[in-house]
């Protein structure tokens, strides 16, 4: 139970998750479904970091689409203009994005309240404007085409199946690391912080430093996901990285549940699948036409009304009275597997 240790439920969770990844990858051959799984994975990576920030550090970021975009553009520009190795570009993008997040988080996270939300809202808009206006570098609103695909040991990851086998293990590793973080000293500090910031500070937790660490980490994760997006789609333009995506990512975290590492994953899966289901039904059922956005909103409202803590809630919070009828964690993994 104590920090650092690998609780049995965690090992079980990760094993089931890995099994779900393998089963899906081995049995599904449709590029459409695999492509959707890739999209879910990309969003899940960003949502995972955002979940750490929201659930554990109690902070909201309205600029994560910007960090996602920074990674995508860094990869696009560095590989198409400077011929850099895509993997090197991914690392450079992540480092650069981390530095930017650090610079913005440093002053804003010292203050109490939702200053980070405001700071990141501004930052997201600035990044988006730069994508549109700095045409010399970003080619403006028309975007950058012909971005090279990633390759791994001489194998070009140029189709959905190959990319699936890269991205989902990456998500698995990220989930594992996030779990480690939560169970580390830093995680305990964050947990204390989420419960009561004043008490945590009094107990010797460097509140600002812990928050800054999580924020930077989540930005780096978003940037890595963005780099993968660029090499997967092989085209980037500003519009996917606008404010709407930041909101969508936050919704994923809220719907999935922010208090476990699985929540954001489930949220990304459920929302992406839901979007597709509605799009397909609008295409096939004439009466649904034009109503998919309404239906999407309605389903979200239902989710939040009946399950405000998110689809995946933690087994039991330490110190909290045991709650009956919570979903056991492994069930959540199966949901992830199916949803992807």
């Amino acid at each position, binding site marked *: 139970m104590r920090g650092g240790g690998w609780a049995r439920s965690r090992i079980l969770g990760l094993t089931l998750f890995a099994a779900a990844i393998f089963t899906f990858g081995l049995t599904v051959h*449709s*590029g*459409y*479904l695999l*492509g*959707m799984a890739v*999209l879910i994975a990309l969003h899940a990576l960003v949502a995972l970091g955002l979940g750490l920030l929201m659930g554990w550090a109690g902070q909201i970021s309205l600029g994560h689409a910007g960090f996602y975009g920074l990674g995508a553009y860094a990869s696009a520009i560095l590989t198409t203009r400077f011929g850099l190795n895509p993997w090197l570009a991914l690392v450079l993008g992540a480092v650069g994005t981390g530095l930017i997040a650090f610079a913005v988080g440093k002053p804003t996270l010292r203050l109490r309240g939702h200053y980070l939300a405001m700071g990141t809202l501004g930052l997201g808009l600035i990044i988006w404007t730069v994508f*549109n*206006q700095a*045409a010399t570098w970003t080619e*403006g*609103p*028309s*975007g950058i*085409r012909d971005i090279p695909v990633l390759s791994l040991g001489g194998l070009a990851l*140029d*189709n*959905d199946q190959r990319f699936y086998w890269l991205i989902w293990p990456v998500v698995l590793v990220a989930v594992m690391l996030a779990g480690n973080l939560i169970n580390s000293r830093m995680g305990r500090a964050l947990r204390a912080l989420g419960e009561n910031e004043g008490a945590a500070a009094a107990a010797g937790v460097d509140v600002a430093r812990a928050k800054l660490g999580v924020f930077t980490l989540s930005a780096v994760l978003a940037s890595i996901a963005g780099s993968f997006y660029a090499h997967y*789609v*092989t*085209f980037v*333009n500003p*519009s*996917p990285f606008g404010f709407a995506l930041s909101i969508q990512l936050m919704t994923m975290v809220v719907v999935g549940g922010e208090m476990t590492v699985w929540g954001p994953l489930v949220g990304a899966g*459920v929302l992406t*699948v*839901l*979007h*597709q*289901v509605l*799009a*397909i*039904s*609008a*295409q096939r059922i004439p009466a649904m*036409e*034009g109503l*998919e*956005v309404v239906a999407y909103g309605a*389903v979200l409202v*239902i*989710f939040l009304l*009946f*399950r405000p803590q998110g*689809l995946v809630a933690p087994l039991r919070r330490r110190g909290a009275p045991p*709650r*009956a*009828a*919570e*979903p056991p964690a492994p069930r959540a993994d199966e*949901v992830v597997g*199916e*949803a992807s």
Partner: protein
Amino acid sequence: MFQARHLTVAVLLLAAAVVLVLGGCPKPTPPPPPPVGPALGPTAQAPSGEPIKIGAILSLSGPGAPLGTPERDTLTMLEKSINDAGGVNGRPLKVIVADDQTDENQALAAAKRFVESDKVVACIGPSTSPTTLTIMPVFKKAEIPLISCAAAVKITQPVEKYVFSTAQPDVIAVAKLMDYLKAKGFKKLAVVADSNAFGQSGVEALEEQAPKNGMQIVRKESFGSKDTSMTTQLTKIKGAGADAIVCWGTNPGPAIVAKNARELKITTPLFMSHGVSNAKFVELAGPAADGVIFPSGRILVADQLTDTDKQRSVLLEYTKAFQAANEGKTPDHFGGHAWDAMHMIVAALRSAGPDPKALAAALEQTRDFVGVGGIFNLSPTDHNGLTKDAFVLVTVKEGKWEIVK
């Protein structure tokens, strides 16, 4: 127990979602039932056999909806009329429409669905440039032709074997305008452009073509797509000593420019782009629209064309059919892009059959195709095939369009 019930609801919803999606993936289906024969046209042989599937990824919601909606209406109308007339090579045509919500990820998913599960032989759309550029690699890889209804230069330059476009590119609109400006002896231009993709691409073309035509750009200003006043930009332009102002943008910006120019008593002639070639512009600008000159596709002024104009009969045919099928709505350029794409595909299907590779090769051979957007002459190095003759210059006179002679 309360919690458990809600979890059940959530899981059920999710399960329903999964089932629906999986239901949408390919499975060995029995051959479809023979299509119902058309009620009309006793002379036409009813098409039979498996339908030839053509995908259409269009923006029916989101910011691109004004483009995608007439495109969809046009395709639906054509699907019916082609099938009523016996289909293509005796087989019925089936147009499958997907709404991309003007969203790149949705367009990407739709593209994969069409390529993988629906197995379309060709795809029309998307309506906008960013969505087109996002899904191009999917069709390139699947070796299925994609005919976009969007105009960005990057769609057709550099040429992709399987990607085509029926929209008139900005460069030829600028070229058409340049001819006029040169003939009238204008030397110094002031440019005011929308900061969106359309405006910026126009500026690039203007900057490239002005010096070649002996003109100089003395002032360059831009405005945001949602700005409500352009007086600052116009005041700067007023003092710049330009003898012509060129405004490049899509509604509502250019209408505000026209209004503000009038308020500031600017008498320098005002020129605009094909982005204002629609009723909305006249509606927004009111009397300030009078005297503005812009390049436009011929559909706007179809009734004013002379009998010698090669496109006249096609334009009138399209207008008549569209109005009959859509309760008298006036057709526009966007629907025209879809009309042209569909006719090119049908012609290619008739000559090459429904194999996507052969279809792409046949599309590339399209010559002298008289369409709504212009006369198309495609080649392996030109997948758009239009020249500046696709445009005429149009001016507004008392709220009505008039061809500039």
